Each structure stands twice: as structure tokens, then as C-alpha cells.
């Protein structure tokens, strides 16, 4: 509409730029899923969704608890006497019982090595809101944060878009098992300084998305000493903490600083219930800062994204049920381990390896041997083959700013057991079929034939924005497919 063009000049730069990162060429690939989603009976040859990091393995436990605890809802006969008080509760300090429940959960997930203070818990609109809020507190427009790659695609929006900050990637290499080395940190920092970029801190996700690994104590100590030396901040996004399903155990940064001489004003934790509990719809984000000024500021800013009091009330009851929480965490770990094992072992049998991991809702699959050449272009070509021929929606490493082509993030916790089998079978078939054709040129012809005529921009364009984040890989999102709730009403 003509007016739209004229009116566009009257909007802010933020509203009209692309720094939210959601306009991505990857969107094309997702249409294949949306138009052909797998269903065991209605569409058994459809595309299986493996690009969504959701934890769907333990809803049965939650649903049972809800049935047994009707007074946790302010709307049921058992709980309605609290309706009014909760409905008017908009205090940005959040419900005391809710904070206590979250603090207990965080402590437990950290192996009971740390006690988290409920009075330090600040809520926010999901980890999305928490990360943005922390950035607003710590840095000014034009400042930058170091972030080890590969990293969660949503950081481009959450940390940069409205805050005006920049991200400086710290490249981690497969030769190091993608460890964050002091050398890499120093190099990234120095490079930034030379370009007059004011680095205010480092942000890491532990456990890592997309790697699925936990940080070892040595790396964490090295991070703490690095930020201490430079007098910059360390933000630890621990959103996947309780998805750790085997050893080594998850160690919170809170535990590390207990035994280290460091400036605690530099240390901040972001947490959420979206992955550990599987509640992304409830928008529970947490900022836990050891810096009083940041805590107070974040608390005031939480007004822009408070957790619904109805939800706080329900979750307070749930999280304070220590027996339930203990049982849930144990069961969840078990199921995640089993699922992870099924996939990684299944892939190993057909010669596909993945990064050794013990956490997260995904694993980091190594498809480098199957690349025509070690380039992003080849990675994306392979990606399209996987979507269109193998009919699995996985996420290419380039969308996580991985410096090495050929890695893919594969989610495993958002489907039932039967779908797991189907997915594994498809991968097996694909790999074995590929192996049957010994001739390398034949192989590449075969793959080229399979490519769909999708629009594709060159790798240089992909790097222009400094980000490649398809809508599906960042939360919250416009999900593809649409959830049944959306389908039912539209």
C-alpha cells in the first residue's frame, strides 16, 4: 500500500531494520515441513520436525500432578478463594512462594552445591526477556558482548535488536571439541579492541545450545578469571541446566564463584522453565545477578515482562512440591538419556558420528564426511537434501554461526518413541543408499538431482547480516507447523 511506504519513514529504525534476524533464507526450507508435516497415520511420509528444541518427554508427570493438585489453580473450586488476590497481584518482586520454588529448583539442578537466594530471583518474559533485560542493564548502544560460537540463533535478536549492542563471536573448533579456550577469548577481545569495539562482557550458554555439552570446571574458572582480568561481565544462560542427563554433572557458575576470588558484581545467571520443565508457553524467565544494582534494575525492568500471576501461583505450588520435583528431574534425565542414546547409537551404526554430549534437547551431528566440499554452500545443499529427500527437518550449523561447515543440530525430545524409530530408519536408508554409490562424482550428481528448486542466496549474503536465524530456531516464534491450538481455531 502506497501509504505504507510513506509512513515507513515515520517509524523507528528498530522497527524497519532486520536486526531481529527473522528474515532468513532458511525460511524457504521450512515451507517443506509446513506443507508436509509428518503424522504416523495421516501422513507417514511427511517431514519429521527435528528443528524444534522442545522438551515433550514428561508431560504425563505434570498432568498427573495437576489433576492431583486442583488447588494449584486459582480457577478451580479448590483454589478460587485465592483468585482475587492473585488476579490483582502485579508486584514486580513476584510471588514469594514462586521465587522460593524457583530458587529450590535451581539449587537442586545445580546438584545442591549452591543455595540460591529467593530474594535475588527476578522474573522476566521468558529467557528471551531475561537476556534482553540483562543487556539493557549492563551495556549501552554500540557496546558489544563476546559469544562463543556456535550459539543459539535467537541471541541475535535478544541481545542486539532493541539494545543496540553488537555480538563478537569467539570461534570454537571441533578439534578442541568446541571448547572455549582462553586463547580464543583473548584473541576475540583483542580484535574487538583494535576495531574500537567496547566489549562489556561475555555471554555463554551452559549447557550449550546447539552443542548439548556442559562446561567443565576448568573452562568456567578460566572464563571467570578472564572477565575478572578485563573487568567485564559474565552472563551464563543456564536454561538447559536440568536437561543434563549423564555425567559430567552440570555445574552452575554460582558454584564456581563460591570457591574463587572474583568480583561477584560481574556474574549474572539467566534461567527459565521452558526447557527443563517443558513450559515455553508460560513465559517464565529468571534473572539471577550477584550484582545488587543489576538485580534492582532488572527487577524494575521486569515490569515490561512479568510472569502472569496465575502462572506464578500454579508453578509455585508445583516447584515447592519437593517430592514431585525430585521425581520429575530424575525421570526427565532418564528419558532424555534414553532418547539421546537411541539416536546417537542409531546414527553410529550407519557411520554418522556426533559430538559427545550429555545435556540439551538435541545433539550436534557431524555430517562433514558427506559434504561435497567443506563450505557453507555445500552444507546448505546437504541440508536441503535432508529436508526434501530424507524428510527430516534439522538445523544447519551455519545458522548457529558455526565456523566449520557440516554440523547439524538435531532435536530429539519433541516427538514420541514411534517417530524416533521412523526418523532413525530414514537416516539409515539415506546413508546406506549414499554408500552404495561408490563413485564420488555419481554421489554428488545424485545429491544435486535431489535438490529442490529453492531460492538460495550466496553465502556472502548470509553473512551480511551476521546472522542466520530461521523463525523455527528461536523462541518464541511463529512455529512451523502451527500448533494444534492454532489449527483448531483458524
Amino acid at each position: 500500500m502506497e501509504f505504507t511506504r510513506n509512513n515507513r519513514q515515520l517509524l523507528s529504525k528498530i522497527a524497519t531494520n532486520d536486526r531481529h534476524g527473522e528474515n532468513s533464507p532458511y525460511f524457504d526450507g521450512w515451507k517443506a515441513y509446513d506443507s508436509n508435516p509428518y503424522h504416523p497415520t495421516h501422513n507417514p511420509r511427511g517431514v519429521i520436525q527435528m528443528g524444534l528444541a522442545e522438551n515433550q518427554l514428561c508431560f504425563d508427570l505434570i498432568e498427573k500432578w495437576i489433576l492431583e493438585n486442583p488447588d494449584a489453580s486459582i480457577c478451580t473450586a479448590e483454589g478460587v478463594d485465592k483468585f482475587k488476590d492473585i488476579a490483582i497481584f502485579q508486584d514486580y518482586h513476584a510471588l514469594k512462594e514462586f521465587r522460593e520454588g524457583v530458587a529450590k529448583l535451581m539449587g537442586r539442578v545445580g546438584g545442591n552445591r549452591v543455595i540460591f537466594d529467593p530474594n535475588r530471583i527476578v522474573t522476566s518474559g521468558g529467557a528471551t526477556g531475561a537476556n534482553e533485560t540483562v543487556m539493557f542493564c549492563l551495556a549501552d548502544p554500540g557496546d558489544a558482548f563476546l559469544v562463543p560460537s556456535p550459539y543459539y540463533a535467537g541471541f541475535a535478536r535478544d541481545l542486539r535488536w532493541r539494545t543496540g549492542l553488537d555480538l563478537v563471536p569467539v570461534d570454537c573448533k571441533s578439534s578442541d571439541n568446541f571448547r572455549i579456550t582462553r586463547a580464543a577469548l583473548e584473541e576475540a577481545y583483542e580484535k574487538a579492541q583494535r576495531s574500537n569495539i567496547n566489549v562489556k562482557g561475555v555471554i555463554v550458554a551452559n549447557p550449550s545450545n546447539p552443542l548439548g555439552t556442559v562446561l567443565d570446571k576448568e573452562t568456567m574458572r578460566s572464563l571467570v578469571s578472564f572477565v575478572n582480568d578485563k573487568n567485564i561481565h559474565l552472563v551464563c544462560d543456564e536454561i538447559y541446566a536440568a536437561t543434563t542427563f549423564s555425567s559430567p554433572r552440570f555445574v552452575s557458575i554460582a558454584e564456581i564463584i563460591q570457591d574463587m576470588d572474583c568480583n561477584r558484581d560481574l556474574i549474572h545467571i539467566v534461567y527459565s522453565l521452558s526447557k527443563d520443565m517443558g513450559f515455553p508457553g508460560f513465559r517464565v524467565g529468571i534473572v539471577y545477578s550477584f550484582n545488587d544494582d543489576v538485580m534492582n534494575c532488572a527487577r524494575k525492568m521486569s515490569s515490561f515482562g512479568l510472569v502472569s500471576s496465575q502462572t506464578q501461583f500454579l508453578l509455585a505450588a508445583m516447584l515447592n512440591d519437593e517430592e514431585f520435583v525430585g521425581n520429575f528431574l530424575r525421570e526427565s534425565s532418564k528419558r532424555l538419556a534414553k532418547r539421546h542414546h537411541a539416536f546417537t547409537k542409531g546414527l553410529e551404526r550407519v557411520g554418522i558420528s556426533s559430538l559427545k554430549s550429555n545435556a540439551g534437547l538435541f545433539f550436534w551431528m557431524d555430517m562433514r564426511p558427506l559434504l561435497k566440499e567443506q563450505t557453507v554452500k555445500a552444507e546448505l545443499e546437504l541440508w536441503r537434501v535432508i529436508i526434501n529427500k530424507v524428510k527430516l527437518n534439522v538445523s544447519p550449523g551455519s545458522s548457529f554461526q558455526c565456523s566449520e561447515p557440516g554440523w547439524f543440530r538435531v532435536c530429539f525430545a519433541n516427538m514420541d518413541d514411534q517417530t524416533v524409530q521412523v526418523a532413525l530408519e530414514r537416516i539409515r536408508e539415506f546413508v546406506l543408499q549414499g554408500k552404495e554409490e561408490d563413485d564420488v562424482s555419481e554421489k554428488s550428481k545424485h545429491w544435486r538431482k535431489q535438490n529442490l528448486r529453492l531460492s538460495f542466496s550466496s553465502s556472502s549474503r548470509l553473512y551480511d547480516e551476521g546472522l542466520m536465524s530461521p523463525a523455527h530456531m528461536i523462541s518464541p516464534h511463529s512455529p512451523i507447523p502451527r500448533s494444534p491450538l492454532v489449527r483448531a481455531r483458524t
Partner: protein
Amino acid sequence: MGLLSRKATCNSHGQDSSYFLGWQEYEKNPYDEVENPQGIIQMGLAENQLSFDLLESWLAKNPDAASFRRDGQSIFKELALFQDYHGLPAFKNALVDFMSEIRGNKVKFDPSHVVLTAGATSANETLMFCLAEQGDAFLLPTPYYPGFDRDLKWRTGVEIVPIQCTSSNRFQITAAALEEAYQEAQRKNLRVKGVLVTNPSNPLGTTMTRDELDLLVNFITDKEIHLISDEIYSGTVFSPPAFVSVMEVLKDRNLGKTQVWERVHIVYSLSKDLGLPGFRVGAIYSNDPIVVAAATKMSSFGLVSSQTQYLLSAVLSDKKFTKEYIAKSRKRLQKQQSKLVAGLGKAGIGCLESNAGLFCWVDMRHLLSSDTFEAEMELWKRIVYDVKLNISPGSSCHCSEPGWFRVCFANMSEDTLKLAMQRLKSFIGSMAVNDRSHQELKNSRRKFRTKWVFRLSFQSFHDREQDER
């Protein structure tokens, strides 16, 4: 280099102001009918607590909505996973119908133009991020909701330039005041991006007249800027004139296919009309697809909990219920407001005639020791400490005239309201006995008020005395 951001260390959030003294005092000594009958009565909180029984009885009749069930089946998993920033379609559909109903069905809203946000707080900030940036300003008529200082300016870097409104014409917006504000912004080297009004007004409790709305539409058309109408109190209009939304005006003037249509945005929320501030349900309504697209992405930072969306989609889809609720709520608000007005009247205190909102704009100018904001603060402290009522001084709302106070009435029972009025009456009575000469002096000064008041604010009482002598 500072360790924290400028935003973290500045005062733009506005929460260190001395007005919070009243709140602190209340927290220390809150009134309770049984436990603490001598405590401070909270009249500074614009909450609607008069109709919870209606919601509670609806819940009793609708157990499915209460417990994550639809047609008897559990949908917990789907809700727990639902984080689509386009929002639950059933909820958006029900919400636009509700908004329409409140406006007497004179306007229809398109659900695809709605962006859900965590409260109007988030909606207003998000709109600022979409429409303006550092170096820009929005014009706001005074007096205005104190929270705007934080919501519109803090993290966005946008400035507010006031449109001065006065009691001489019931604080209505005039063309001259609009123009003056615009010029003031220019003088400050600020680029005016739009006007933001609250309709019905907080703190005035009045609905905007059609003339004012026409004036605004003409102004933004002429200047090619935006208009944001925060209609958070639209469902609290309890007596005539009926609420007229800016959307209605645009429709009536056939501006539907013009540029200005895309520059008018509405903010809404269920915090006041339904009394559910804890649930954080806000919405932006815009006819500009770019704004809707950008705001939708930004809503990621503060979505409405899916649990809450589901509950409210069921509530608002029950048209029989919403009709009944709106009617009963209005009646109760009207009754309570008239009790407040009558009670104030008995204490010799008048207020701005109002037909909406959860508060009255009370005129205590005659009780000031001098026509200054210092005197207003003095009086306010007496009311908090001696009368034990927490009310909001006009200066916290950037009112240009000292002596006005916002007094809330919808967050308490009839009995508590009665008690509050009794306390006020006693206080006024005792003031009269003790300060009779003071009173006479004030009365004589009152005659000078209309001539001098705007130019002489901030002069102390003693200075004034000397001048007049």
C-alpha cells in the same frame, strides 16, 4: 568505562521519586478492617476490585477453562508448548469482540491487527520502540499517568513533551496547547513523532469529547505524526457521555483509506476493565502492517502466558457473560464513584465531574497554604500521615496547577470508602477550627488564583504575601 549501562544508573525509571513515600507509609501501616482499623487506607491504587464475584461465579460454572481442559480433554501439553507470538487465535478473536462490545459495537476490530503484550506497560514501551528513538518526542496532555515516564522514555530514549491542560476548561486539550507543545519540542531540538493520549483519562476520569478527538486527528494529519490512544479504561465508562474511541472518529470521517489511518494506534489491557492486572494482558492495535509485524516480533520479550490466554479466551468468548459483566461493573463503579463524590462534598471538597475510570480528580486547591507545589506536598503529607489516606498528588501526574489529587475508589469496599470519607471530613473540620485565620487568608487569595496561578507557581507563601502587599 562504567560497569553498568547508563539506563541502569540513571533515574529515568522514575521510581526513586519522593511520591513513593506514601506507598512506603502504606506498606508499613496498611489499613485492615479487623487487624488494623487505624491503618492507612490505600486510595492511590487504580484497581478495579468491585466485580470479582462475577468472574468467580463464571469460573465455578466453567471448570474446563479452569483446568487446562477443552471438551473434557486435557490440553495442558499444547498450552505449555504454545509460544507462538501471534497469540492464541481464539483469544484474539474473543478480545476484539470484547473491545467492540465496550464501544457499543460502533467499531469492529480485526484480530490480525492485534499484538498481545505483557500488560499495557509492555504495549506502550513496544509502540515507542516501533515509532520513535533517541532524539524523538511524544506529546502528552497533562496531567498524565506517572508510569508513562518509565514506560515511554526509560529504555527507549524517547522524550515526553507535555501538552499543558488547565482547569479553566476542565483540562481538555486545546489547539493552542497542542501547538505550543509542538513548538516547545522544536525548541528542545526534539523531533515530534506523535501524540499519546489516555482515553478515558487517567487521572481525570473523563472521556474525551468528539471535538477533542477531531482536533487530535486534524493535528496529527497536519503534522504527519502518530496518535496513540491508550484506551485501557474504556470499559470503565459508567455514565454519559458514552465512550468514543478514536477509531470511531476515523470511521465516521471516512478516513479508512488514508495515510492517517495507519498512524493511529490503540493500546488496551484487561487490567482495569476486568480487574486482572496480575495476569499481564495487554494489546496493541494498529492499522500499519509494518508496526504490527515489528511489534509482534518485539512481543517475544513479554508474551502473555498461554495458560492465561486460554482462560481468558473462554471467559471473553462467553458473550452472555461479557454483556452482563460490562453492565454490572459499570453500575457498581458508578455507585462507588457517587459515594466518593458525595463524601468529598460533605467535607467541602469538590472534584472534576467524571464519568469513567477508577478514581476522581479531586480539587483541594482551597486547602493549600499557598498556591505552590511545595504546599501541595505539605498537604499531601498531612493526608498520608494525619488523615491516613494514601492519595496521589497532582504533581506526580505532571499537573500544571497545584492542589489537585487523584483519589481511587474502586479498590475498596463501601464501608472502607465510608470510613475514608469520615476521616477526611474530620480532618477538614479540625483544620477549620485550628486554621481559621489561615483559611480566611486562603479564601482571599483564591480570588487572585485565576489571574496569577500559572505564572506564580513555586513562589513560597511568604514571597507571595509580600508581593500582594
